[in-house]
């Protein structure tokens, strides 16, 4: 077929097979590739050479924005926009602004975490080329796959295929984009 290829997909029967194959693909220096498993495999992120997620940093930024929003909102409304003495307290004090700032810290952290996660995952995603693969449903049941994308700088049809074969992959086939 003339359509450009998305990448190569290889099938593995057991978790250890997949785990060791992932380590080999990692060591070969590939970057644009992924594993498809029916359940979370502990330690697979390490075998794939994945760094820790940067979602926590996005969460931190969200938290800081939330805290500053709370503080400045209460300062603006109470000390600038509509000055009103309540209970003999100063027009602004971080004391009474704290509970609200704290709540907003949590709220904005949650938003940033969820939003950051979706953004980094590229979700929502309505279509993915592997869905065209006829056996992909086994990836939700009892089989494991490794997909290496053609956009990876190291991708070379013959070499990559050889690597997957050497790593124990079966039914290696090309995916339509």
């Amino acid at each position, binding site marked *: 077929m003339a359509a450009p290829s998305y990448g190569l997909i290889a099938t593995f029967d057991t978790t250890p097979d997949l785990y060791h194959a992932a380590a080999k693909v990692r060591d070969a220096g590939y970057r644009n590739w992924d594993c498809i498993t029916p359940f979370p495999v*502990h*330690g697979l992120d390490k075998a794939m050479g994945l760094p*820790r997620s940067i979602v*926590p940093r996005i969460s*931190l930024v969200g938290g800081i924005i939330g805290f500053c929003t709370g503080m400045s909102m209460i300062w603006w409304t109470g000390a600038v926009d509509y000055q009103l003495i309540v*209970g*003999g*307290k100063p027009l602004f004090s971080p*004391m*009474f602004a*704290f*509970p609200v700032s704290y709540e907003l810290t949590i709220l904005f952290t949650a938003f940033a975490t969820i939003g950051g996660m979706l953004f980094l995952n590229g979700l929502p995603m309505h279509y993915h080329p592997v869905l065209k693969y006829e056996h992909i449903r086994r990836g939700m049941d009892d089989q494991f796959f490794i997909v290496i994308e053609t956009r990876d700088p190291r991708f070379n049809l013959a070499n990559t295929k050889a690597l997957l074969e050497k790593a124990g992959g079966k039914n290696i086939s090309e995916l339509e984009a």
Partner: protein
Amino acid sequence: MSSTHAATASSALPSDTSTAATATKALTVGLVGLAVTALGVAVMPDRHGPVMSYLVGITFCTSILIGMLMLILIHHIVDASWSVVIRRQFEHALTSFKWLFLLFLPLLALAWVKPGFVWPWMDLTHELHGHGTVGTDILYQKKSGFLNLHMFTGMTLAFFASWVWLSARLRKASFTQDSDGDIKWTFMNRKTAAIGLPIGALTLSFAAIYWVKSLEYHWFSTMYGVWFFANCIRGALAIGVIIMIWLWNRGDYKGVLNTNHFYSIGMLAFAFTVFWAYITFSQYFLIWNANVPEETFWYNLREVNHDGSTNQWWYVGLVLLFGHFFIPFLYLLSYKHKVVHSKIKPIMWWILAVILVDMCYNILPALKDGHGDSLPFLSLNLLWVLTSVVGIGGVCVWSYLKSFPTAKLIPIRDPRITESLTHHE
């Protein structure tokens, strides 16, 4: 795979002589610390300072032990798995309760021999600053059913009795299971936890109220027991991490602990940092907001002198705000700071140090000058605080190290041991 782990760990039964030597050293250091404190009481012209410092020391050490007890009880009630390999060290440490009781006895005896010396409300003739005596004080009279020498003595005995009893039950069940592997010990621990948690919560709250809060018996705070609990757990977690790294470096814990154990205990330390801040802030905020004199005077003592000038405790309060919350909070946000041994260890020592400052902040301002102002933080009392902590802490370390060789390094037949050894995120 896990069974080989367990086998390796059990063969490394810590029977070595180095522990015994360290134990003797700890006891020596402890006794020297206690002797220096006693010397302080004997030679200082004003004996209040060293005695109150001793109260700081014993409250600090007891709080850590209570924290360990509570962590074990929580571990059993929620049927936790990852903490199985760490639990054993806390069980060893629990032997110190009986020594802490022994070390508390001088304060109890002092309460009978010289009532009012430490806790002013015990002496009905004690002059209050500016308005009569304790006996004629309506705020004392209304609280006298709770605040009297018999209640104080009985309650203190009950606190230690419950802690020693719960500890003995937990240790017996856990240690016996090592040899017979019987599941009934796990169930026994679960029952101990079910009854022990309410007992623990009540005793630690009342201990904090009787020993510390009642130094200013006019004061009201419904947060006090929870504040103490937060410090208990933070102290226990800090010591837990320090023990983990010590045993790792010695080689005992190699092949037993993995990164995720540190990550989990680090997360708990982080969570309780936030919890401490939440409780401590709430206490301050509610009192600040309500602005009732019976409550605000407690903070005023820790901020200003009678002439309105700022006193040293104001700065200690800021040290607590930043040192007890912001620094550990921001530091422990990072994953690396929780799992890299050289990074998590210093913050745990730091937390222990600030808990001690927190105890000083709560106890030492009860020492007052002729104007009713709190005596400054920076004084010779800090020396007595240190000698007391070294003294009482040394005895606790000795007690822990004496218990250490009597059982296996980890509870090898705990039903959750495999899960704990293969703990993952």
